[in-house]
């Protein structure tokens, strides 16, 4: 199973994977040994959306992801938790190849979306990203009007033939993102003038507008206040009916509130995956327990 050299590692991972986050962990629990490629809990599912096997990611010589195997089910909300620098964002970004633009990033293993290899040379990354949308940590609307922000995806993919169709897509997306009532009278005003929470919901609307199957969310609420966070979480719960959602979060409460399953990452290893209430009430692995009880991370 282990194609990479099975190094047992618990030293601090030198490479910061997520921008703006300090790597050093506050404290290491007593020498806990993680066996590479071994995940406790329920990492696999029947008829999954994503089938990920033995995934490793390296930035040059630093291995950020070490032999992770995981299934992500249909219409499932799965959250990735773990201390800073544990590789959860890196892993998330592999799912729609956002790491492609990093030259030194090397990905090995098998990543399948609906039984098609994500990293196959025949795979068109543009088509992949139209199916697997992404919402980022910091709200990043284009410095254009609200309408143009949402309409951008449908426009470049040619999803609408007429202005009225485009109008419908924009309205629907904004409705789904719960932003229609606030935005309908100011569709032409610049998106960057909105509040942070509104901007993040706009980014979600923008992602929905191309009708993706999966939405990846990289700490979508870390820059938002509690009210905006609650609004976005509500939205995630509503969206889970029609989308597969993968969410990276630093807030365990958030993971507990929104997700069906929770995956705990540690230093590039996937330590434990299980139903969310199980992970938070009776974690199987020592590291998971230490983390959720707040002993480190």
């Amino acid at each position: 199973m282990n194609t990479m050299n099975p190094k047992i590692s618990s030293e601090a991972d030198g490479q910061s994977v997520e921008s703006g986050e300090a790597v050093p962990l506050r404290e290491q629990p007593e020498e806990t040994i993680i066996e590479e490629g071994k995940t406790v809990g329920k990492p696999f599912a029947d008829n999954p959306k994503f089938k990920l096997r033995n995934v490793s990611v390296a930035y040059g010589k630093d291995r950020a992801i070490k032999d992770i195997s995981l299934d992500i089910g249909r219409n499932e909300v799965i959250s990735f938790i773990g201390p800073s620098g544990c590789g959860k964002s890196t892993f998330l970004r592999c799912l729609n190849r956002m790491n492609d633009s990093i030259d030194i990033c090397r990905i090995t293993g098998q990543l399948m979306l609906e039984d098609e290899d994500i990293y196959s040379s025949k795979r068109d990354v543009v088509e992949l990203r139209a199916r697997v949308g992404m919402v980022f940590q910091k709200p990043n609307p284009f410095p254009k009007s609200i309408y143009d922000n949402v309409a951008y995806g449908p426009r470049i993919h040619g999803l609408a033939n007429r202005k009225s169709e485009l109008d419908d897509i924009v309205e629907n997306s904004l409705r789904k993102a719960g932003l229609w009532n606030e935005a309908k009278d100011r569709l032409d005003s610049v998106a960057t003038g909105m509040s942070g929470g509104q901007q993040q919901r706009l980014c979600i609307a923008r992602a929905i507008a191309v009708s993706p199957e999966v939405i990846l969310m990289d700490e979508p609420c870390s820059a938002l206040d509690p009210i905006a966070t609650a609004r976005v979480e509500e939205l995630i719960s509503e969206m889970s009916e029609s989308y597969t959602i993968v969410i990276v979060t630093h807030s365990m409460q958030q993971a507990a509130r929104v997700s069906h399953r929770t995956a705990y990452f540690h230093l590039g290893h996937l330590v434990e995956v299980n139903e969310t209430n199980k992970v938070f009430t009776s974690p199987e692995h020592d590291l998971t327990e230490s983390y959720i009880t707040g002993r480190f991370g």
Partner: protein
Amino acid sequence: MSDQGSQAEIVRKSLKRRYRKERRFRAYGILAIAIALSALVVLFTDIISKGYTGFMKTTITMEVELDGEMMYLDDATDERQLKMADFVEPLLQALIKQVPGATQDDKDAVRELLNPYASIELRNLLEVHPEWLGSTQAVTVLAHTDVDVYAKHAGDDAYSIKLDERQQRWVDQLMEEGVVQTSFNDVFFTSGDSRDPSRAGVLGAIVGSLLTMFVTLILSFPIGIAAAIYLEEFAPQNRFTDFIEVNINNLAAVPSIIFGLLGLAVFINLFGLPRSVPFVGGLVLTLMTLPTIIISSRAAIKSVPPSIREAAEGIGASKMQVVLHHVLPLAMPGMLTGSIIGMAQALGETAPLLLIGMVAFIVDVPTGFFDSATVLPVQVFLWAGSPELAFIERASAAIMVLLAFLMSMNALAVWLRKRLERRW
């Protein structure tokens, strides 16, 4: 507790020193700005005080009797007759009438008050109004350069007055009567260079500059921006691109005269392009401006936040769409500013143009990219080297024109930046 007290004491002691340091630093800053500003003020006062007279011309207005017999002309519509006719005599006679105490014997002395070009002015007038023949008309013609210098600079020791005392008295009287007048120098803006200072103008140089700048802009802006985009967005990170990058930075530091030599060797000697033409000038200045544009454009592209790129990529925009829809519009203000600064540099450039022969004495205003031409800074260079002080004041005036162009270009750059700048 005592620890805290002594620590506070230490901090308090160092405070004074820290504030002193800050005050000293501010004083240095203010001093530096004051020096820069005063240098600027000295420069401007010198140029303006020396050059404002360049914007004035001296003219003679008089009632000229256009007697066909005197001029050997009986049909003003006949071109051959116009060529042969005498236009000096009616002007001379009219001026003799105006000059108090002058007789027919003083013809030569009076003639020296008239500009040699005055007769041509009169002919041009008659060509337009042939019906004036036989009548008496009020005509305004240019005065001689010596009269011009005397009228503007009488009493200034720096200028040598070439009129003799009798002529000076005449001019004094004519000025009192309003026959000799100084007015705004339209000739300066409507004609090319001339050996005669009072007829020399900057129009040829302005048009030459505009043509050269046009070639430079058309070539350097698209090439520079395309190079910047490729290097920043598409080029693989390897030794070769590093090498290119280092060399672009080196090119920006190459003295401009080297580009002139290159232009002479390659464009003129190798490709056989003509000398002294705006097209070659534009090519040379393009080489000089490219590094500036590439470097500033790359900086502008780099300053586009990666979050915008990610946002577009996350929706599934292709690399080209990310660049065209998002990076370029956001980087455009910076690119434009850099390009305009580069163009302003090129506009003020003299050395490389000297080498490709744009330093020739050219009277005609150029009409195309392959007409012999000169440019504003070279015109300044030519006039400033002239022994005649009347040319020096024109040089100062030309410097003011050049500065006006440069300032308006910089103002345009600032305006564009303000206008196109977007917040994110």
